[in-house]
């Protein structure tokens, strides 16, 4: 039974899927995913098997899920801010920075930003991601605008998912098996 299920297509290149599901086998799945078009997905999924009364365990797995999603959103925000802070600057050489905030989790993810004089690119490495990248041309306002819209959209969707998970009532999740 779906407690919530959201599919959002707002950018040129990504779809956000967010859901919480309970089933009669005693499992709950919390999932948030960003599918980057033709380049794989960025996922956080937690599945918990429980006997319908183990509120402590359920609370624990929900908290872990929230930490992972928060880490992901925070790292992505840092990457976005780093890119924005370098938008108007010229460089003598390539500059790179690696964001590794979320590698400790079950779905390790690494953000890697590279800027040259013409482009800023953000690469996202991790499971099910085939060299996904989001970038923009520094000399094109429309290119930057599209990139900004997509980055903001993805980040906001992670936060929205968190609000939805935190808003779930325990009694909705618990199932008498």
């Amino acid at each position: 039974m779906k407690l919530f299920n959201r599919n959002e297509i707002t950018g040129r290149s990504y779809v956000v899927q967010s859901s919480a599901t309970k089933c009669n086998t005693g499992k709950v799945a919390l999932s948030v995913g960003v599918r980057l078009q033709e380049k794989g997905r960025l996922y956080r999924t937690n599945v918990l098997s429980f006997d319908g009364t183990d509120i402590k365990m359920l609370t624990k797995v929900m908290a872990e899920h929230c930490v992972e999603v928060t880490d992901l959103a925070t790292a992505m925000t840092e990457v976005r801010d780093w890119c924005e802070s370098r938008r108007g600057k010229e460089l003598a050489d390539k500059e790179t920075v690696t964001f590794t905030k979320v590698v400790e989790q079950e779905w390790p993810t690494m953000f890697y930003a590279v800027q040259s004089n013409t482009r800023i690119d953000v690469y996202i490495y991790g499971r099910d991601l085939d060299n996904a990248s989001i970038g923009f041309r520094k000399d094109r306002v429309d290119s930057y605008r599209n990139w900004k819209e997509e980055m903001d959209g993805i980040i906001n969707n992670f936060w929205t998912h968190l609000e939805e998970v935190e808003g779930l009532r325990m009694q909705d999740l618990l199932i008498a098996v």
Partner: protein
Amino acid sequence: MMRHIFAERRLLTSFRNRTVACCNRSSINEKNVFMTQIDLEFGSNGTIGLKTVVALNPVMAVRGLEAYLEQLAPVKDKLAAHLKTVDEYIRLFDETIDWVNNPERRFNLVTTLGYNPLIIHGTYSDRDVKIEVFGRNIFNLNLGFEVGSPGQVAYGVQRLNDLRDCLVEYRDAFAAIEIEQYINKH
């Protein structure tokens, strides 16, 4: 000027029925661009590659010691950074091999050095050990094996050791390259 190759080696082997090629090469081309790289290629699953390219100007060598040193310093810095990255990769493989011999918990190893950041992610169950490698030009590479089969375990560990040895061999060959000698010749 012809392309001058300092060292080149290509090793073909197989891993879980996929071709693994280890290619390393250091050369200077006709535009005086020095390039050194090592690639571990995994069939269609991508490449773990490390590459450093530096432009040399041999003319500087005959313009006096000051000009020579001025040119050489950044080149040496870049090459030292490259060597450090190779060392870091070797460390990750060492830690992975240690973990495979005693996989008590899942792990994430990460290097953020150079232009090729890498994550090695290990998980295990009663059935198998999974070692996934993520990074630039790597497409969901899995170096794992089934734990129920002693032959597969031995084979898997051996292949990991092979990859590690390829990196060590490259590092040693690379460290022996004498950039100064090349510049002095011209």
